[in-house]
């Protein structure tokens, strides 16, 4: 697990990277995801969210830490476990809940739901129901960033299980060959559905990236500051060098593969490392008063509850309006 020189130097000098947001801000963003997903779990259990949902509890540090360095014109392609990515990239809670509840004013007008949630206005190119499906889309988006000029970049998130899919390898090769400004971010939670990924993938991403000659960086994904600092450096590098890099974070999938998964197969009985608890303990250490933190948490909870309540009142979409958008009309382009 290489570490950028810049990050090490900065840590030595200042204790933390001045370019990344304050920890309290990162913490608040993680709490937003956690609270939103808690509500998702409850709404799912109550039958108010239909379909399949994959919660990212335990992985918020990656979403928040990586997205802290991105701009709205940077693009990301996500996975089936995409709530955290979407919210951290800027999808609002209203569009989010309304989408998951299948409402007409959801981010995708209730046609996609959890596995396909997207907000192109903030550069979020969609969760994806296909493992590896977003990787090549991000690659194309990265090529668009390059051809447009400027210093934008694309990111694809993917899980450790996705490493078995050919598309990831095709994309690594092309990214390096064509010098595409794309950051491959692997959220390694050790699981591929109900199977330990060690039974599915025989290589490490670090060695693989080395074979491709793509710079690789890895870190503990449950420490949001570490993630943010490393990501800031690596994002910066991709912006400047206009070529790919790989980032891998060790994370914990706290809940089941999807909601409703009893996780009986799970043998790793050690308590999960929770990025929220890690950050919270550090805030305490740094002397941030508990009531201040609790006020932030309460505010987020209220905001989430408000969004949920509003989503409940939102109208259902009609089949006619859906039917009208199977094809884009001629004027949509240009």
């Amino acid at each position: 697990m290489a570490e950028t020189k810049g990050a090490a130097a900065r840590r030595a000098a200042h204790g933390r990277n001045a370019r990344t947001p304050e920890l309290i801000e990162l913490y608040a963003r993680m709490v937003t995801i956690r609270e939103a997903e808690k509500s998702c779990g409850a709404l799912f259990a109550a039958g108010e969210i239909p379909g399949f949902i994959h919660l990212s509890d335990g992985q918020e540090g990656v979403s928040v830490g990586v997205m802290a360095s991105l701009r709205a014109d940077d693009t990301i392609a996500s996975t089936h476990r995409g709530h955290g990515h979407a919210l951290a990239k800027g999808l609002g809670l209203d569009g989010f809940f309304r989408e998951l509840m299948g409402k007409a004013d959801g981010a995708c007008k209730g046609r996609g739901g959890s596995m396909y949630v997207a907000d192109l206005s903030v550069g979020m190119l969609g969760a994806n129901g296909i493992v590896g499906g977003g990787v090549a889309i991000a690659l194309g988006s990265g090529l668009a960033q390059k051809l447009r000029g400027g210093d934008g970049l694309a990111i694809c998130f993917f899980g450790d299980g996705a490493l078995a899919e050919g598309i990831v390898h095709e994309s690594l090769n092309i990214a390096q060959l064509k010098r595409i400004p794309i950051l491959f971010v692997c959220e390694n939670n050790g699981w591929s559905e109900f199977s330990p990924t060690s039974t599915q993938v025989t290589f490490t991403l670090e060695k693989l990236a080395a074979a491709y000659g793509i710079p690789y960086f890895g870190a503990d994904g449950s420490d949001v500051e570490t993630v943010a600092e490393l990501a800031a450096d690596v994002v910066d590098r991709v912006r400047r060098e206009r070529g790919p890099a790989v980032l891998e974070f060790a994370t914990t999938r706290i809940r089941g593969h999807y909601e409703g998964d009893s996780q009986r197969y799970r043998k790793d009985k050690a308590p999960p490392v929770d990025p929220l608890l890690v950050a919270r303990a550090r805030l305490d250490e740094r002397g941030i008063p508990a009531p201040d933190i609790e006020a932030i948490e309460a505010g987020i909870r209220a905001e989430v509850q408000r969004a949920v309540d509003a989503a409940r009142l939102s109208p259902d979409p009609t089949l006619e309006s859906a039917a009208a958008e199977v094809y884009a009309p001629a004027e949509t382009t240009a």
Partner: protein
Amino acid sequence: MSDLRFAHAINRALDDAMASDPGVLLLGEDIANAGGTFAVTRGLLDKYGADRVIDMPIAENAIAGMAVGLALGGFKPVIEIMFMDFMTLTMDALVNQAAKLHFMFGGQSAVPMVVRTQHGGGLNAGPQHSQCLEAWFAHIPGLKVVVPSTLDDAYALLRGAIDDPNPVVFIENKALYPMKGVLSDDVTATPLGKARIARAGSDVTIVSYGAMVHQAMAAADQLAGEGVSAEVIDLRTVQPWDEAAVLASLAKTHRLVVAHEAVEAFGVGAEIAARMAQIGFDELDGPIMRVGAPFMPVPFGRGLEVDYMPTARQIVEAVRATDV
């Protein structure tokens, strides 16, 4: 006779096939330890061991390609592709390799393999987890395509598919998995290609397959109340499909409706209708009507999906529309 669910009937067919032929192997994602996402393969790992019930990484094209190699090597692989939407990743292995080898190698070898997958809506799984793509495979010479609708057929046709020396795409409808029913004691492997008359009738023929057969039966019930006697044909196998059975029914009823859950346009129903508009033309007393999903991706939202799914009511209306 045992009271079971649809998923159990499939499990039992796999179990019995493995017990009777040591060459039968299962490969798929999370099918062994986890027993399958829909629990269809539960218990088989314990019974047959990890050499015959093989958990695979997420690599659908390789899994399908391996099945071809295993089949050439004397085994009868039964692979599971978790959702039919993921079959998009297996198309080279199935279409360019599995389907063609017997023909292209001059009959040197059969390619006995089965791809189990599931299709269909009703679970709000959204556009990439609900598609019915059977028409693609039916268009490919060398492949067979099976879509069972009942527990007995799930068992009998899966046994038949495993016995068949050709690559077979065996499609389960996800909404049927929990369906309770009876598995007959005497059910055995059925050769592929024979339709089943699910309900005899004399006024109109309703051809269907898979989950939609149940809608067709409901429609027939309703029509009976209106004094219309509908014959319901469950195709069971859509490639090859039982042209003779459909034609015989049409010769009796002179009216035809074809219904499936897949998108209507360019779906399986198109072939059946087109064929009958040729060889059954003289029998037809009215237009051939089709019932299928509208031309859009399967939408996620609850109400949207309900409105999207073809229903018994639409079949009844289609039957009325054949009566010009």
